């Protein structure tokens, strides 16, 4: 049974890959319509299996708790966080896809989710104990984690939307009228989505980090011990803060905002990887 559940993320990965190819084919092929392939169905199945595997991990911890794990918070580890972000990206996309007619964005979101899942190390086995960080149960800690993860997801969406916006704008500017341009959402729609995801993501991330700092101070966790985290986060937040302020106050839009959004997300990923893999403190798995 356990082996079966460990196979689920691998199956999800294969399904995300297939969905990426299907969405990409629908988007790029002149002869195909959006939604003609089974991209959505593959994503649905993939995200269901993905969710089951995430639930199984949590249930395994509950069923096989040690005294140590009973006392301490089940804090998501680095791979688990990445996997959760991947699952949320797909889940939220599937919820928004039909409502906002964003089928074409599947070609941008699916590969992103696939990369997160791949990077989360699904191919490696982690014991439940490996997910514990020795932090006591705390609501603020959970809120900190949830908000930052939501921030990552929103920034991930903003990045996907920005890529689509850049493609659409370059098609229109270069005056290459193709079906690709007709299949992608309009520039105005992509711009609005980008702005909403960025503002939403920034609010989540900013409040999540504030809560993290508060939790650190309350738990006597030295900020200096988290210097790598602080530096990475500050750089990323500065980029996103400038971007959001530019959007709200100076009317920064279109491809310029999209490029900054992509740059911000790359920086976020770098700081995320750097903090979790190289940095010290509680953010390593």
């Amino acid at each position, binding site marked *: 049974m356990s082996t079966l559940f460990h196979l689920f993320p691998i199956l999800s990965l294969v399904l995300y890959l297939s969905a990426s190819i299907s969405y990409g084919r629908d988007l790029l092929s002149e002869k195909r319509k959006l939604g003609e392939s089974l991209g959505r169905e593959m994503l649905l199945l993939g995200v269901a299996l993905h969710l089951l595997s995430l639930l199984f991990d949590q249930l395994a911890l509950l069923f096989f708790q040690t005294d140590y794990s009973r006392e301490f918070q089940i804090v998501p580890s680095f791979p688990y966080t990445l996997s959760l972000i991947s699952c949320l990206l797909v889940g939220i996309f599937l919820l928004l896809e039909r409502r906002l007619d964003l089928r074409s964005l599947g070609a941008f979101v699916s590969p992103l989710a696939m990369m997160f899942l791949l990077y989360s190390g699904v191919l490696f086995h982690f014991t439940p104990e490996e997910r514990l960080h020795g932090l006591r149960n705390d609501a603020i800690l959970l809120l900190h984690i949830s908000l930052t993860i939501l921030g990552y997801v929103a920034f991930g969406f903003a990045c996907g939307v920005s890529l689509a916006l850049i493609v659409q704008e370059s098609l*229109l500017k270069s005056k290459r009228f193709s079906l690709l341009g*007709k299949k992608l959402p*309009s*520039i*105005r729609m992509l711009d609005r989505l980008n702005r909403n995801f960025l503002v939403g993501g920034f609010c989540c991330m900013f409040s999540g980090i504030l809560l993290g700092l508060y939790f650190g101070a309350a738990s006597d966790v030295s900020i200096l011990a988290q210097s790598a985290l602080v530096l990475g986060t500050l750089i990323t937040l500065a980029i996103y803060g400038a971007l959001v302020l530019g959007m709200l106050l100076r*009317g920064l839009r*279109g491809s310029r905002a999209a490029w900054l959004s992509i740059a911000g997300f790359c920086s976020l990923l770098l700081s995320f990887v750097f903090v979790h893999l190289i940095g010290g403190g509680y953010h390593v798995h």
Partner: protein
Amino acid sequence: MSTNAQQKHAPEQNGQNVIRLAGINHRSAPLELRERFAVLEEQQDSLLRQSLDRPEISEAVILSTCNRVEIVVSTPPDADRAFRESVDSLFEIHAGISRAKFSGSLYQFESDSAITHLFRVAAGLDSLVPGEPQVLGQLKRAYVSAKGQGATSALLNRLFHRAFGVAKAVRTNTKIGQNAVSVCYAAKELAEQIFGDLSQASVMLVGAGDTGALALKHFRSAGVKRFYVANKTLSRAGLLAETVGGAAIELSSIPTVLPQVDIIIGASGISQDAAPIIARAAVEQAIEARRGDPQFFIDLGVPRNFDSSIEDISDAFLYNVDDLQAVVERNLSSRESEFAAAELIVDEEVSRFLAWLKTRSADPSIREVQRQYAGYRDVEVARTLRRLKSSGFNEEQCRELEAALKDMGTALVRKTLHQPITTLKHSLSDAGALDEERAAARFRDYLLGSGEDFEES
């Protein structure tokens, strides 16, 4: 001009004339050259007059649209070189450039190829966007204008009426025009790529001509609710704005309104040397005021209405008529089957028109026969009246009977000649040039006898 033209156009003189067509279009010449060739409404009469001043040109119609400038004329059959020389000279003066610069782009057709070309143009088969209907309206106006100037006669009148008939047949019998394909439709599609749902978008039209009106219609059907129409003549702008529930503004108010509108359509006729109606600086200010919200500029005017450097501004998208070529190419593939059906109609109509042209060689003979038979009728009516008078009918009764007898005589002549004339025309439509003369002579000899005059009989 009118008197000279009418003298030139006497049917007897231009009975054997040949139809010729020369011009440039979007395929043969780039936009820059078409801009030089463009004939504004106020220049049309003068160019028409200059054309008719040429001895070899009997009739002329000038068509000038965004995508083509063409002159359709009737000339004597041997005027090939003279016509080319005239066209080169006319356009050289009008465009203000040496003929060497445009000779490679200028095409010339005569007889059946000229008729085919004109029919294809009228049906929208030669348009940038196949099947688009504006060109037919423009062709009709060009013809009406030329006719009003007395620049057309029997041959071109018949040709243009047939061209309008062909256009109608193509639109009725094929699906080529069913998908609202036009430059304006292509522009609307592009606008949807920028703004998505157009119900929240606003449109400003510069110019109040037909192309602009059609563009407004397309955008209104796409859900746009806010319109502005800017024009030199405010009353004309007002009339057009009223049809879409929009507001009319003066050209000087454009910079003020510009930041409020998403889509700006240029469809105004301006001279080649005039400054663009919307300059780059105005757009930069508008984009700044809109805080980066994109604007879409559709320049349907030739010469161009908007500063071409607008396309370098971030968040501003500028498309001119040539840029819409890509849209056309995409649509072309899906219209191939309709295109073939439309071409068949054109071919049939060209054959029919050519057949009619051949029958025109018999016109003098037919007119002569009709005149002779009318004479027989008058002689017989006079003879009958004399008899009636001698048998006791008074003057008043004879006058009443004369009208009735003439009507009867006319009807008899018409019925008697109907079959021979139909047979002659039918045989002429398949005959060669040499046979045409023989057939007409035989027709005349058969009906009139060998030179026998009715008065002698």
